Every structure is written in structure tokens, then in C-alpha cells.
């Protein structure tokens, strides 16, 4: 499977969206694959390189090594699809924490609006990279704080205990 996908990687293909909202990949043979998914291989450490396009069964159809190297239309479609798929709210402020002991409820302002969620354990707040933090709520949804130093004092105080 690996060999095959690597062989696919550099072949030309085109991407478009059909009326059903599905992403369709037409490969170099003119064969259309409906409902393909776009996945970043390194979503955090290197988001703009190694973007894989897989079919409904999860087999790789194409691997875009660098989004800079594909035509503008494909790049736009890929980026739109990624925006549609990826759900990683960035926490901008921590408005309140219900207690110092887990499980506790956090009230946060994110780039996707205000939200409340429950942290079920101390270990669900991690240091992430040099200055960031990753928070995982009781339902498994992840929230990113790209740079803890950018938060206001009150938010930082809530986080302090975890980092």
C-alpha cells in the first residue's frame, strides 16, 4: 500500500466539489473518486506540507508534499476542505473555572465563540510545544492555546497550576 501511494503522490490530479457537497478527486486516468478526504500528516508541526488525500476506505490517492507546489484552484479547494474538517478551537481567554479540582467546568472564549466544557482530569491539560498548551475536554474535543504568554493575567492564573 505504501509503495502504491508513493507512486500516486506525484501524478497529476484535480479536485472539485459536487452538488452533494462531496469532494471529488479525478486522477490522471480520468477516474473520479467521490467523497475523498483531505488530511494533514503533521497538522501542528508542519501543516502546509504532506497533505494526504484519501478515499472513503481510507486508502491514499494522492499526497501533496507541499501546498505551494500545486495550482491555485487545488490549493484553495484543499484549504477550504481542511477548514471544513478541522475543528480545533483556539482558546483566547479563560473566563472562569468552576473549581480547583477536576472534574471542573471551564468557561472559555475561543475563536469559535464562547463555550463551556468539563475537564475530567489534571492530565488533560498539557504543555504543548515551547509556549503552547493543549486542553482535552471530557468528550475528547481538543482546544489549543497557541501561546500561553499571549493570554491575559486571569487566564494565565487558571492555567498556572497545570503547566
Amino acid at each position, binding site marked *: 500500500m505504501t509503495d502504491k501511494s508513493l507512486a500516486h503522490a506525484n501524478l497529476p490530479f484535480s479536485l472539485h466539489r459536487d*452538488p452533494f457537497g462531496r469532494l471529488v478527486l479525478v486522477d490522471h486516468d480520468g477516474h473520479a473518486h467521490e467523497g475523498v478526504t483531505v488530511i494533514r500528516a503533521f497538522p501542528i508541526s508542519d501543516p502546509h506540507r504532506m497533505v494526504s488525500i484519501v478515499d472513503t476506505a481510507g486508502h491514499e490517492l494522492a499526497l501533496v508534499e507541499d501546498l505551494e507546489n500545486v495550482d491555485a484552484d487545488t490549493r484553495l479547494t484543499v484549504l477550504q476542505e481542511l477548514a471544513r474538517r478541522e475543528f480545533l478551537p483556539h482558546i483566547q481567554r479563560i473566563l472562569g473555572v468552576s473549581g480547583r479540582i477536576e472534574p471542573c467546568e471551564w468557561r472559555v472564549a475561543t475563536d469559535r465563540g464562547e463555550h463551556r466544557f468539563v475537564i475530567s482530569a489534571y492530565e488533560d491539560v498539557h504543555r504543548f510545544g515551547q509556549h503552547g498548551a493543549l486542553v482535552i475536554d471530557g468528550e475528547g474535543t481538543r482546544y489549543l492555546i497557541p501561546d500561553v504568554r499571549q493570554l491575559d493575567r486571569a487566564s494565565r492564573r487558571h492555567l498556572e497550576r497545570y503547566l
Partner: protein
Amino acid sequence: MTPSASDPAASAGSLPQSWRPPVESLLEPGEAVLAWFQTDLDADLRFRQSVVVLTDRRLLGTDPGGVEDRKPDRSIARHDGAVTRTEQWYAWRIAADQRLLLSDQTGAGTLELMGPERRLAFWRFTSARSSSGGAIVRKFESLRQRDPEAIVAPVGGGVCPNCGRRLAADETECPSCAPAAAPPAAKSLLALIPFARPRSGMILLGLGLTMASTAVSLLPPLLTIPLLNNVLIPHHAGQPLDYRLVAWYLAGMAGANLLAWLLAWARTYVLAHVSEQVAADLRNRTYTHLQRLSLEFFGGRRTGDLISRVGSDSDRLCNFLSVSLVDFIADVFMFIMTSIVLLSIDPVLAIVVLLPLPLIAWLIQNVRFRLRHGFSQGYAAWGEMISVLADTIPGVRVVKAFAQEQREIDRFRTRNEHVRVVNNRVNRVWSFFEPTITLFTELGLLVVWLCGAWRIGHDSISVGVLVAFVAYISRFYGRLQSMSRMVVSTQRAAASAHRIFEILDRVPSVPEPARPVTPGRLRGEIELCDIWFRYGTRTVIKGIDLKVQPGEMIGLVGPSGSGKSTLINLVCRFYDVAQGAILADGVDIRSFPVSEFRQNIGIVLQDPFLFFGTIAENIAYGRPDASREEIVAAARAAHAHEFILKLSDGYDSLVGERGQSLSGGERQRISIARALLIDPRILILDEATSSVDTETEWLIQQALENLIRGRTTIAIAHRLSTLRRADRLVVMENGQVSEIGSHDELLAKSGTYTRLYRAQLQSAAEEDVAPAVPEVAKVAVVD
């Protein structure tokens, strides 16, 4: 039509409160709500509540995506708590050529309504909601196919319209879909009070003794006043020394000291005794609670961390209660009483002594915050350093195999350096703090001498009073110093209390039912009704339906990661399904008390765990009251009897950690005997033969034959030969059942099973291990 279908208002009653008025206002006469699904994101993935409601003729929904080409049907304001928002409602008549699709991507899922030519609408939601979307999709599917069953509204029919859970007769709201109660507020050291309450008598006695011993210890300095004023100073002035009076005063001082010593002894013993009991209660409660928590909790924890919480943290608390707290209380008494004594002897001098107090209090308060912050940082740094150890010591073989010792040493060194730096910061504060208090003490003493000398010069007080004051003041400030040390130990104890209450406050995720049904001895019928389950955001079981007859043996087959083990964990109720229900003898297993249900289940795992103890104890683990005859009978049926007799102490041989080592096959047969002894109605075999060689497998097979007979059995096996007795084979792929049937039926289908079977035949032939191949081949001939 059910009665509810004729009464729209009643059928909307299953909806969450705030959605009822808008939905009721939209329903046509006679229209009934069949299912609903609440989403929590809008089309641009911003947080926003929406709802999709399926009725017997229409799909209604608020604020969907993909509807740019049409106007909303209605716009209705909704009140949710204090918030009022206006929602755009859209409605679609259900047609046979429509489809409702639910897909779950990492992080956010989509519910799509597809028309014949294009997508009509979509809704987005977080993974928190995804597992409850199955019901509306299934209802929609049967409705558009005009399946008569679909017309039956689930409302009042005992099934939650949101998640598909069977409801108890008197439950109107599904307990798992009801909004979760807010998590409890943080607890501190005050949370220990309930643990202290049963011992309040002893605690009061301890406090009484504290007060008495403190009061008595204040007597000796008081006696120095008359000793100086009546005896020593007059002698200095030329009068003869009154030896009788001297003897009296000294005897008084000695007596007071002796009494204070006795009382302090009693006090320390009583309070230490109480706090030891409180700590023991706390340990018991923590461990009891720990055992009640489900596997989910243990899955996310490090063993070492849990052990240290039950062990060291409760010990640290005990130390705090028995030493620091007792000292602190004694200090406070001493402080108050000394102040009273000083004030009664000479108010002016007393006020001079008490003058630096506010300054010291301010200093303590100031330092307290820095210390707390420093300590918590220190603990975190320490934890990170320990986690390097926890990572690399068990994985030391990998480290050495890849020659990465130096990298791990560097990693540890970095963390260790971090610990040093953080602790150093605390030490800087701390090292400044103690000498500063000492300085204040000395300065206070200086001021007392100064003021005292001045007042003696004016004949306001006697020399005796001044000497008594100096004697008191060193105690006074000494207490202050130890009280400030209390600040540190309180912060440490609070951190420990936090770690213990973190366990105690955890609600088991496999909850005991509010109205339990006693399962008694089950017949062993198992029914899985559209069950869903996910770990985090990954859905691993996607809508499985399966009915197992009493006494039937089911073999679960499928590639690894297909959800076989998860399915078994759900049947055992190690986890609860996210949606749907598992019924045993027609009753939702969530209505049984967990332990009574599990008494009906026997489990044989891939790598059986033996506890430290004798073989007999290990076999009787599930039924400690079993007689020796029963144990031997079980061992015999499990083909374990003979090898047990070969051990030096027979059934009394010690096994488990520190005990005699047994081979994989031997341990497996002991665990089969263990399962046989409890005589379960439902038997779970999870890869029971995969870790042993083929010859041992044959022995285990023989043992299993006896175990399976007459019991409902669900078995997972990679080696298909293990499943040759199975009545039906269930092939799982990707969290779903792909094929069901007997060995022959599945071979005839030439699907996944055929592929797995061929692959095994081939690898067995290549291995050239004879027994496994004929086993499998025989099945083909016999069946």
C-alpha cells in the same frame, strides 16, 4: 399510530425544555415527533446550539448550512435560561429519494440531508454529540422506506429518542441525555471535616488538654515575679535570703513544669491518635472508591501515581493533622493566654510587646502567596521529572536496543535542572523569611528592655515584672515563628488533600442504577440493540445489532482494531455504550447492579493475572467460600489438576508475584478453572489461546470444551481453530458486523472471513506446525 401521534404537544415532550415551544408551534395537526438530535456547532464551526427534529412526515431544523438558496420557513425566538435567541427554522417533507447521513470526522461531525440531485442541508456538531445521532438517522431511513415500525413514535415507548437507550417504566427523561449537573465546587482542607466528625469526642478532649497544658506552662514565668521582687531584690538590698520562700517558688515552678509535661504528653497522644484514625478512614474511603471506578479511569492513569495518592498523600495529611495542626492550635492558645497574662501584669509594656505583630502578620501573608505559587511549581516540575523515570525505566530495553542512553540521561538532566531552579526560587523566599522573623523577635526584645528600663527608672514597674516579660516574650515570638512554619505545611497538605479528593470526587462512569433490577441467575440471552461506542473522538463501535440465544457460542472474528475487544468490554459493562442498549434476558444491563450482573459473567483473558496467594485461592477468587472439593472439580474440568499436583505444594503452592512461576498455558488453565467455579451463565473468552504454542492450545481447548458447555459464550480468537465449536461466527470490520454465519456459510460467501481463513491456512502450512491445520481442516469436513 400510537396515541401520542394524535397529540403533537405530548410527542414534543421528549425534547429538551427550551426547544419544546418552538417545535410545538411548528407541528401540523396530528404530526408527531419521532426523534431529535441536538447539535452544538453552526456551519462555520462556531459554537451554537441547533436542533434537528424528525416527525412522522417532516424534518425540521434550525440554522442549517447549505441553504443559501432558500428562505427560512419561520423564525422563532427561543428562551434558554436567561438567554433569548432567534432561530431560523427550515422544514423538509420526507421523500423516498432523500437520505440522511451522519459522518464523524476528527473533532467535528456532520449530519447531511441529501436530495436526489444535491445536498439540501447540513448541520455540524462536536464529537460530544456524535454518538447520539444514530437514532434520528435510523428512524429517517425506515420512515422514507415506509417501514411501518417507523411510524410508531418512541415517545413513551421506553426508548430515549436521542440516544436509543431503553428507559425504565417511570423514567420520562433519559438519564444519560439529561444535562449533566455542574461539577462539584473545589474542596480544600475543609473537606476533611466530615472525616473528623465521627471522632469529635476525642478531638474535644485533645483540645481541652491542649488548653490546660498551655495554661500550666505559663505559670513558671509568673512565679519569677515574686521570686525576684520578694526574695532576690530585697536580699540584694541587704536583707537575709528567705530560703523557705525560695524553696516554695522553685517547687511551684517545678510542679507546673511537671504538670505541663504530663498534659502535653496526653494531648499529643490523643490528637495524634485521632489524626491517625482520620487518615486511615481517608485511605479506606479512597481505596474503596478506587475499586468502584470503571476501567476508563484506570486506563488514563499511571499506576504509580494512584499508589502514591492512596499511600503517601494520605500519610502527608496525617502528618499535617497530627503534628502541624496540633502545634498550631497549641500555639494559638499560648498566644492568646500569653497576651492576657501580659496585659494583666502591665498593659503599657504589653502593648509595646504586641506592637510588631501587625508587621509580622503582613510579612507572613505576603510570603504565603509566593510560597504557595513556588510549591505548586515545584510539585509540577517534580512530577515531570518522575514521568521521565516512569517512561524510561519500563522501556529500558528499547532505550538500550536503540543505544539512546545518553539522550535519556540528558532528558532527565534537563528536567532535574528545572526542579533545582524552581526549588531554588522558593528557597530564596524561604531563606529570607525565617531570619527576618528572628530579627523582629530580637528587635522586639530590645524594645522591651528599653521600655522596661525606662519604666523601672520611673518606678512604674518592678524588676520582677521586667524579667517575667522577657521570659514570656521569647516564648511569644518563638510561637510566632512556628506558626509561620505552619503556613508551609498547610500549603503542602492542601496539595495532598487535593490529590485525594480528585479520586474521591470522581463519579464512576459506569454508574449504579437508581432503581436497580436484580438479575438473579440469568438465562444467558444477550441482545445488542444498535450500540455505539467511542474512545475520545474515535468511534469504534458503529451501530451493532446482534442477538445471542441462551447457550449459543458466538465466535468474533476480524482484523485487529475492528472493535472485537471493545464489544466484549461493553457486554461485561466495563464501559457503558454511548448509544443503544445491551439487553440480558430482555433487560438493559444498566438497570442491574454492576456486581450482581458480573456474577453472571465468567471471563478468560489472553494473559491471565494471578494474585499472590495459593493456587486454591486463585481458583476460588470469584467465590472465596468454595469448598476444596469444588476447587478440585473445577481444576480437573479445566485440565489443571494434574500439573497442580506436580507442584511442590499442590494446591497450596504460592503463585503470582513473588510466587512460583507458571507457564502461560498453566496460568490459562487456572483462569479457566476460576471461571468454571463461579458457574457463569455468560462466558467471555478474549484471545484465550493466542499466547501459547499449538500443543498447549490443544490442552486449553480441551479445558474450554467443558467450560463452554451449556453457557452463552462470546469468544474472540485470532486462531480460527479455537472457534470450531462456535454456532455462529460474527465477522467484524471497522466497528460494524460485516458477515454472520457458520464456518461453511461464510466460506461460501467468499468475503472477509474466507480471506482471513485462507491467510491462516497458508501461514500455518508455512510454519509447518501440524496440529493447527487439521483442526481447522476438520471443521470444514465436519460442519
